[in-house]
């Protein structure tokens, strides 16, 4: 061994350091391309309106200013949009987690012909996003009396194939004996689920909750179609109305956009480990 080690190190040098430097350079080149748009957008939001379009452009604001933020906050009712978005995102997320857990549990732990068929139906929904059939989905939502109500955005987005998969995969790894033991003790199926199976799947529930919150916070098309009353607008719809104007007020738009990202920023900082290490493969592959 002692004779081979130096040889291997010598061999490794030209073959190791060059690709290593190259790889690091490529990686950081890409990272730079990824962060520049975000940085430019973020820094621009702190420029006073007069500086936004003044040549030569500078990366950093000459005079830092929060005027754009003040105008955005006072001209639009952001507190309201935040509240609407938060209600939609939080309520939907709670319902999504519970419903996905129950359904995933049923798919994993009961054997039935109709369950198998239904499972395939749920799988198929990934292939057929509702945006594709939005005219008729809209009619259904309207005829259920959910038009112009936050519930009209919440109820249709509760079931997600991804969430159901994640729980199904997880519960398949839970031994049947655990279930049998609880049954012998006389616990009802519902009780077994609520007091044993749901707490057991906490990590999955957590991961799905983060993802669901993210999907719903950033949702655009359904709030756009269902919420016609400006008092019910979510952040994304409100932003769209600013960017869709004839003359875009960039100072306000940039600040408003930054404001809308803040909650997701907190979620990321708090749950970074969960998000970046989520093993999505097991959840998504079914």
């Amino acid at each position, binding site marked *: 061994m002692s004779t081979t080690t130096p040889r291997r190190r010598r061999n490794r040098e030209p073959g190791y350091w060059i690709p290593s430097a190259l790889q690091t350079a490529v990686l950081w080149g890409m990272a730079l391309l990824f962060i520049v748009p975000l940085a430019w957008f973020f820094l621009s939001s702190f420029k006073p309106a007069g500086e936004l379009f003044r040549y030569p452009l500078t990366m950093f604001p000459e005079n830092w200013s929060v005027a754009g933020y003040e105008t955005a906050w006072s001209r639009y009712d952001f507190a309201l949009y935040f509240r609407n978005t938060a209600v939609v995102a939080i309520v939907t997320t709670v319902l999504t987690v519970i419903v996905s857990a*129950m359904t995933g549990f049923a798919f994993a732990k009961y054997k039935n012909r109709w369950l198998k068929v239904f499972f395939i139906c749920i799988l198929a929904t990934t292939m057929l996003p*509702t945006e594709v059939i939005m005219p008729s989905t809209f009619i259904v939502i309207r005829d259920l009396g959910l038009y112009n109500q936050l519930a009209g955005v919440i109820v249709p987005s509760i079931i997600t194939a991804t969430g159901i998969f994640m729980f199904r995969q997880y519960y398949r790894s839970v031994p049947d004996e655990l279930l049998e033991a609880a049954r012998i003790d006389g616990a009802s199926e519902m009780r077994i*689920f609520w007091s044993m199976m749901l707490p057991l799947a906490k990590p999955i529930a957590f991961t799905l909750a983060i993802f669901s919150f993210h999907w719903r916070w950033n949702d655009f098309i359904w709030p756009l179609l269902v919420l016609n009353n400006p008092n019910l607008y979510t952040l994304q719809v409100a932003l769209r109305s600013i960017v869709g104007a004839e003359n875009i007020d960039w100072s306000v738009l940039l600040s408003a956009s930054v404001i*809308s990202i803040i909650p997701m920023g907190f*979620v990321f900082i708090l749950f970074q480990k969960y*998000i970046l290490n989520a093993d999505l493969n097991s959840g998504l592959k079914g």
Partner: protein
Amino acid sequence: MSTHVEGRKRRGNRIPQLAPLSFTVITMVLFVLFFVMPGGLGIYYAFTDYRGVGDADWIGLENFVELFQDKDFYSALIRTLTYTVIVVPLGYAVSLLSAWLLTSPRTKGAGAARVIFFLPWLVSPIVAGVIWRWLFGESFGLVNYLLSLIGVAPVSWQSDANLSLSVVVVAGIWGGMAFSMLLFSAALKNIPQSYYEAASIDGASTAQQFWKITLPLLRPTSFMVILLSTIGAMKEFALIQALNGGGPGTQNYLMVQYIYSTGFERAQIGYASAASVILMLLLLVIAGIQMRFDKGAEYE
């Protein structure tokens, strides 16, 4: 259920019938309400002149005949396919490359880079559209400014349809990469290091190792990424809404925006449903083709 103790047997037989139903009944109701009904209604409306109010009169294939003569429909369809064909392979390559670099032990500073690559995930499609619109503004954007520094005349990123679409492609890759990258990173970490060690002892180069070991083992993940990003590209809407509104004019309307504008701005639910049915069929065909490819992989 065969392991049940005798005293519980009757109950044990009954429970598995009712319990799964009680666990899935909510999902079933929602599935019927928001997938089966819209799907069925959509197909029905496609053969009617329904306008959202009043009666839906059966008009047979009229909508489809009209659709196939509609220049705007063809334009939206071709634009959507063009966008998908460009953005899916590019997005695949970029996310695989970044995941590979991030998981390679030879790369330095991977931890920080991973966070940077992930940041666009936080940004909604609407805000992503705002960010790229700001960057590619014709008279005020950073890109044209930087080009002017090296003597290039302002590029018409907004008023030229193809350039405008290419900005959408870049923004789409930027915004959609994080998720695919996560999928690839997780899969790459699951490949045993011993495979690579064995290959280097046999003298395989890094490139050979990538093509012969990494890529084949990533096949299931690749399938997932391509399928999800294809569906995502085919229904792209919010990003374009904020980036250029489908402009210049209506030249960059993709299918979902076409359906939105005919169905909601012009209230032609029947006609828009016909376009929906076409898009639905298209997605089914694409999913079918990809499933076939994946089947081949499974039995290898």
